[in-house]
């Protein structure tokens, strides 16, 4: 006990200097140039994000979300900038950042691998798949691999229960995963998922989709758009709630809707049958808005950006075809 008493003094000053929110100017000057530049760059990025959320007091979660999408995680510095700029207390921001599982305060690996352990996937054997990932990657859920390549996490529902067990790697869906396929998922990711995906395909072809939660068909054969059966979903924005019909031609952006939707509005998409939120697990590669996922008949997942006017979309036929 005596020892701890004696070390108390010096160690507390050490903590104090480590904890100072902003290093004194002379400390900054000693930093290597590129570190300082990197810090400034990150700060500017955050300021940019904040200016887009200006005047929106309830927007803390989307601010943190946008920062995490840019930086991969929420650093202490980032949270401090947010606190300073928004006038909120760091304590509150930290409380929110640690409350939601989707926020990470630790740096994350190059690839984010989310294994769904939600109810539907759980009963189809997700725990075994999670264990297999842990074994193959040599890390545990919530952690990054030593080579900084992968961060493994378990999540509670990725919004495609009908195709479970689901694993999402960097926004690409792998459906009906079993432990034998875990190795291939990892191998594919290492080889580069972008090489095998069909993202941004210019060809135009019709797809048949169903709700990713209840598997009910979203097609409306009686209502044609672009000469093909349309896809009907429910959308809501700014207190408005109504139907939206999309062209089922993949690559076409024709749509009809009950209300006029201003360009750039981010919509919430719902299944007209089970009313589930169709928001998927990934963000639009073009604009960062949440992607909406739907199951494509014959396997795979189609994702479209939820922002009106944005042309972000992905067609993931089982993570690029098994």
């Amino acid at each position, binding site marked *: *006990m005596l020892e*701890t*008493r004696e070390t*108390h003094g010096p*160690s*507390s000053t050490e*903590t*104090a200097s*480590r*904890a*100072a*929110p902003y290093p004194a100017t002379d400390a900054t000057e000693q930093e290597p140039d590129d570190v300082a530049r990197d810090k400034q760059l990150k700060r500017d990025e955050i300021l940019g994000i904040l200016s887009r959320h200006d005047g929106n007091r309830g927007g803390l979660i989307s601010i943190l979300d946008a920062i995490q999408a840019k930086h991969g995680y929420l650093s*202490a510095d980032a*949270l401090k900038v947010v606190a300073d700029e928004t006038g909120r*207390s*760091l*304590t*509150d*921001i*930290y*409380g929110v950042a*640690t*409350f939601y599982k989707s926020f990470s305060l630790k740096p994350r690996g190059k690839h984010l691998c989310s294994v769904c352990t939600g109810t539907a996937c759980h009963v189809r054997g997700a725990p075994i798949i999670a264990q297999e990932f842990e074994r193959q990657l040599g890390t545990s859920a919530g952690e990054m691999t030593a080579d900084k390549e992968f961060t493994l996490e378990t999540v509670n529902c990725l919004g495609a229960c009908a195709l479970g067990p689901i694993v999402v790697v960097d926004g690409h869906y792998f459906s009906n995963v079993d432990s034998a396929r875990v190795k291939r998922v990892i191998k594919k990711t290492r080889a580069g998922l972008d090489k095998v995906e069909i993202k941004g395909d210019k060809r135009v072809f019709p797809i048949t989709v169903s709700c990713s939660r209840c598997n009910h068909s979203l097609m409306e054969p009686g209502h044609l758009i672009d000469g093909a059966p349309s896809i009907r979903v429910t959308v809501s924005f700014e207190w408005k709630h109504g139907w939206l019909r999309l062209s089922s031609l993949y690559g076409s952006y024709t749509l009809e809707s009950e209300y006029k939707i201003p360009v750039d509005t981010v919509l919430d998409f719902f299944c007209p049958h089970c009313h589930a939120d169709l928001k998927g697990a990934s963000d639009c590669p073009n604009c960062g808005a949440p992607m909406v996922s739907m199951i494509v008949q014959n396997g795979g997942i189609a994702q479209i950006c939820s922002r009106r006017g944005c042309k972000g979309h992905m067609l993931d036929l089982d993570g690029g075809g098994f």
Partner: protein
Amino acid sequence: MITLQINGLEVAVEEGTTLLEAARFLGFPIPTLCHMDGLSPYGACRLCVVEIGEGPRAKLVSSCTYPAQDGLKVRTASSRVVRARKMVLELLLASCPQSKTIQDLASAHNVHRQRFRQEYEDCILCGLCVRMCEEQMMAKAIGFRGRGQTRSIGTPFDIKSEECRLCGGCMYVCPACQLRCTYTEPEKAVCGGCANVSPPCVEKEQFDDMMCYMTPCVACEIEK
């Protein structure tokens, strides 16, 4: 003015009065743990439950957060209320048996044992310290972190807070920290550690299991 009935007695109170305040005004005792005058109601401990409504629609609510309503019929000590309170006390004893506050409350309600798995939590998440720090000290140095099993109280990133004023208010109100703590009456202190106030925001790492955040005192560190 709002007129309501508490245990059969009519009382008129101002709009915004809580059931707890109204009952106390009439002299009906309601035990509380996470409530403190001067801090906003939080409704965390559920010790202050009362029964409102009648017949099959009667329900239990926390009186410290429930606003008085016209014509409401409130019972502060029905058998259902007493049963619920005893259960809350058993649960509190199960998580933090070393707290003097909880022990006293339990014995006042004739609760002498608890039937759950015994744990020794340092904190029952009553939020008194957080509200003290925010509402009386205007510091906001500490807050809730995480959720569920891993919810805890502390400073962002667990490092010394720039905002903390070292007032000791958080420790003073903490019901989990009062086994030996006699902070206001130093002459009765077991350890005298309280003379060297060094609150949560300073350093807690050395003594993970201590009852309050004061260092260097570890008189109350629990053996697990």
